[in-house]
């Protein structure tokens, strides 16, 4: 009998229950809520589900994730910026730069929407975050998950979990956050504007653009060569016409595998010790401010562009300048059709939308060049 009790005590001592804290329980509940939002409510299920599950796994005491194994490989991929460029490879293979090439002035809308990044940066520094932390928090306003993770891993690895969760949570809430701000920043008459059909873009332009864009941006901002290079390589696979197998792998199999690893790894950074603190609440609030400011600045710049070009631009496409590809463009289309059911803005909004992806990467590269990564 005594041996039985000793064995039971040993099992108990080795179990996770013996080390379970209130913080772990709270974070497991957070993981369950995120799972419900992903599966039950359909908010970004492909990303939020593995993030939520990773959160639950990270808060199982004595999980052994520090020992060599698949989880340590995933953690390595997160902390050493392996996954974000691979995600960009897939994003590039799924992206059509045609609308942007057909209407290059929409690049300015993608630039204007980056204003949210710097509003959040200012707010973060005023709230006492260091300049590196503020830069990593600010990039949430770019609405670009991989770039947020990339910059956080370099500049504020201790905040990576909170930043990634804030970025992906708000990206999934784009259809709820953006419309009221878009309506506030534009007039009804402007929202009804029907834009001209885009010109056809030649195959040469579509092939030359990713190559030239990579060379120019990488020479200017070498710190984001991995991100921009992989984005444009993926796009080259798509447009080359003779690389269909690579394009197919990049946008399907590889993308799915890397999404599983990136999202699960992000969830695994949400341990109670690093997540349950006052800073996380501030980051979540600053992320929302960044999103709102980015949307507002994009829409306001769209209004300005509309006035300057004699009413040819519907300002609603400006809000798509925050990346969140292609959700933000879909929101522009939906809000536009509410005002004018015959209006089709989706392809016009894809221009600023993909410009936003490039703009966020440029903003990240500029901050890395100006501020520098944190010493590891």
């Amino acid at each position, binding site marked *: 009998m005594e041996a039985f009790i000793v064995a039971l005590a040993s099992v108990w001592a080795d179990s996770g229950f013996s080390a379970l804290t209130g913080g772990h329980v709270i974070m497991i509940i957070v993981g369950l809520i995120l799972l419900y939002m992903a599966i039950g409510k359909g908010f970004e299920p492909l990303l939020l589900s593995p993030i939520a599950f990773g959160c639950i796994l990270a808060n199982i005491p004595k999980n052994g994730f520090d020992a060599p194994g698949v989880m340590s490989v995933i953690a390595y991929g997160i902390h050493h910026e392996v996954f974000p460029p691979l995600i960009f490879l897939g994003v590039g293979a799924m992206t059509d730069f045609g609308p942007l090439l057909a209407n290059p002035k929409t690049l300015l809308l993608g630039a204007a929407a*980056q204003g949210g990044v710097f509003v959040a940066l200012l707010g973060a520094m005023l709230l006492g975050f260091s300049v590196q932390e503020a830069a990593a928090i600010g990039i949430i306003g770019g609405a670009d998950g991989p770039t947020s993770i990339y910059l956080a891993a370099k500049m504020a690895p201790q905040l990576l979990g909170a930043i990634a969760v804030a970025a992906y949570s708000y990206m999934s809430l784009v259809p709820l956050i953006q419309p009221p701000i878009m309506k506030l920043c534009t007039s009804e008459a402007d929202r009804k504007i029907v834009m001209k059909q885009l010109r056809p873009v030649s195959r040469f332009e579509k092939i030359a653009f990713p190559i030239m864009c990579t060379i*120019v941006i990488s020479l200017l901002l070498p710190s984001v060569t991995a991100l921009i290079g992989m984005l444009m390589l993926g796009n080259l696979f798509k447009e080359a016409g003779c690389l269909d197998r690579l394009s197919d792998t990049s946008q399907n199999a590889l993308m799915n595998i890397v999404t599983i690893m990136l999202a699960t790894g992000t969830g695994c950074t949400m341990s109670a010790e690093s997540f349950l603190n006052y800073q996380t609440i501030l980051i979540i609030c600053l992320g929302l401010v960044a999103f709102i400011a980015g949307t507002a600045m994009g829409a306001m710049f769209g209004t300005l562009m509309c006035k300057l070009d004699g009413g040819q631009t519907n300002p609603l496409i400006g809000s798509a300048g925050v990346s969140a590809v292609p959700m933000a463009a879909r929101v522009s289309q939906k809000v536009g059709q509410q005002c004018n059911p015959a209006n089709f803005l989706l392809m016009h909004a894809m221009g600023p939308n993909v410009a936003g992806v490039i703009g966020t990467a440029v903003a990240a590269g500029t901050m890395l060049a100006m501020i520098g990564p944190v010493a590891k």
Partner: protein
Amino acid sequence: MGAVTTNPWLIAIINMTIVFGVLIALGVLMSLIQVVDPTKKKADAPKVAAPAPAPAAAPVAAPAASSNDEIIAAIAAAVAALGCSADDIAYVRRLPNTGWTNAARVEANSVRKECF
């Protein structure tokens, strides 16, 4: 190397200037690519030789193939669903590639569920 500056206003102003500058440079690059496009002339050539488009006066052009009748009927139904009548249709004519390419793009963007 340490931070060049820790003044948040200066960081914001310099960064926004660089973001605008780089994207404007990309815009110039795009225009340059369009100008030097060696395939542009080949694409333009058939346009010159192409016959004049069908007169716009006809309410609905009558194409020979029956599949086109179905497409026109579908377009008319879609227009009616938007609250307009079939009389509002001036003409229906096939554009060289663009319309269908755009439709495929719209569909491709609409079916994607994830957001990056």
